[in-house]
């Protein structure tokens, strides 16, 4: 699998807190059996209600690095949320913090979701607002985001970071490798063995 160590592209600033997955992708777009076409509905209702939503603005249409606030992606477990952002064109998310299921979903899709301090996010956001074509680089090895000569430090749980950086973020193959161990664990679980194990 592809190793993910660096994402470079322009940014989209959305420095708001507690953005839930219902806002990222409203439930009516979950009526589907594939993720195809879901990208165009990212933030659909927020975009309808706010012409100034960053996802509406011409200058941010090519953004790859999303800048968000605290507890981004809270709420539902729907993978449709990171899927819609990914299909919109987002390749990395820098936020103050993430809800855990959302974070796990991002990792499964190969989207680095990294954390930075509020002050640093404000700096990054302001730089993108001032220059929407500014090149932003998220670096999982240096654990930093660099932009226009500035650099801010980022954090990410080591498990997820190394999974991305070593190209092992598609866990399916690794999990399958342990078939013997899986059967062994099952053989010791009381509830799979008439509570006599």
């Amino acid at each position, binding site marked *: 699998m592809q190793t993910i160590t660096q994402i470079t592209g322009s940014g989209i600033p959305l420095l708001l807190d507690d953005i839930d997955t*219902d806002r990222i992708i409203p439930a009516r777009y979950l*009526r589907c059996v*594939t993720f195809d076409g879901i990208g165009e509905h990212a933030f659909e209702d927020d975009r309808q209600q706010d012409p100034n939503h960053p996802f509406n603005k011409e200058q941010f249409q090519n953004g790859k690095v999303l800048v968000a606030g605290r507890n981004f992606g809270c709420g*539902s477990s729907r993978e449709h949320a990171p899927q819609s952002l990914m299909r919109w064109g987002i390749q990395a998310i820098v936020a103050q913090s993430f809800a855990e299921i959302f974070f796990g*979903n991002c990792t499964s899709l190969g989207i680095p979701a990294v954390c930075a301090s509020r002050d640093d996010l404000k700096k990054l956001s302001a730089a993108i607002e001032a220059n929407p074509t500014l090149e932003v680089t998220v670096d999982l090895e240096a654990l930093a985001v660099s932009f226009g000569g500035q650099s801010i430090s980022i954090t990410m749980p080591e498990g997820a970071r190394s*999974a991305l950086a070593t190209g092992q973020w598609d866990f399916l193959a690794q*999990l399958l490798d342990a078939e013997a161990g*899986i059967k*062994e664990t099952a053989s010791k679980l009381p509830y799979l063995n008439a*509570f006599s194990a």
Partner: protein
Amino acid sequence: MSDKQNLFNKVWNLHAVGTLPSGQTQLFIGQHLIHEVTSPQAFEMLRERNLKVMFPERTLATVDHIIPTENQARPFADSLAEDMMSAIEKNCREFGITLLDLKDSRQGIVHVVGPEQGLTQPGLTIACGDSHTSTHGAFGAIAFGIGTSQVAYVLATQTLAMQRPKVRRVEVNGELAPGVFAKDVTLYIIQKLGVQGGVGYAYEYAGDVFDRMTMEERMTVCNMAIEGGARCGYVNPDQTTVDYLRGRPFAPQGADFDRAAEWWLSLASGRDAEFDDVVTFDAADIEPTVTWGITPAQSVGVTQNVPSVASFPESERKLVSEAHEYMGIGDDQPIEGTKIDVAFVGSCTNGRISDLREAAAVAKGRHVAEGVRALIVPGSQLVAKQAEEEGLDKIFTEAGFQWRAAGCSMCLAMNPDKLQGREVCASSSNRNFKGRQGSPTGRTLLMSPAMVAAAAINGAVTDVRKMLEPAAV
């Protein structure tokens, strides 16, 4: 096992298959639950890679999110919903998974069905492509929501890659006042700890309040652990848990049951169990609670006023003003008396028989206010049947509530039950996010089922304590 271990760590260790190169644990999942919304793409992943389901008997499927609660004739009027139904039917048939479909009397919301059938048991790890999987923690299981890729992992390997969270003990001690329900307890905890307060943690709910709760009340509390950011929430198994499970279809039977019960009770956190963090609350401080904003933490006691923007720290004010504006609610406005247009009793938080009984106790002999649309949506077909046997459906319909078929319904409005425009809904569900109930500008006030019934009758948020019989109070 050492008495210092908490339940979470005992159960986790038992299910750890090994450590992955990333350092995460490969965790065995004892019970997998699926529904029509988050599974179709997972089965597609299996097909693309030519994989089978490793333990088909450890996955159970049901249908809930898109189910119409009025006309259930197939094909559904909504062709997209029909496609999803056909997909889960085909996937379960092809991969050998039991499906409780609409024709099965056990069908219902996935988090209502699991416990009801006795599939949810102490000591299990339970996963489902749905964030409210935390509900099952009420039994002393480790139960959490997962995304669709992870649903594919569980289907193919019965395992997940997981980072072990820390464990926080959330204690509530003392007596709950009359008219204060499990829903109020869980809303209160989220208000105090914040919607992100639980990130990185599993919550152990402990203290006399939880010890005295019924299983259904414990489920209401654990259901909303996720709304406080926790990865999962649980209550230690005790005699209440054992009594609930006895005789349920998927529970162990006969001598197996006695051995099971002994094991279940042994899993409870030891007296000297260690936790990464402990917080305590006093039950006497909890009132009937109502949300006023757009996150489940934005709530107040029913006798209080909506907090002003200025009362929050600087960093919170932007979010609070956004909530005020969206809700059309102002600084220091009393929450009681807020007009409502719709009332909804249902969902995996509060769609069980005890919830319907509590709502019916308030509705009995009264009538829904003019202009209010009020829906009662049982959490499962078995809940509906039980309610009908008790005559609750009659109490509701005579009071002007609509009696619907089982499903998620207006909790997330993927079926035809939706708010219109800026309607305000008194809801027993779990999320008051913008647009959650089907209208992009619709507004939700979360509260207990009894409070929803009270609001339906008065056409406005009402302190239910004024309407309860003195005997019941």
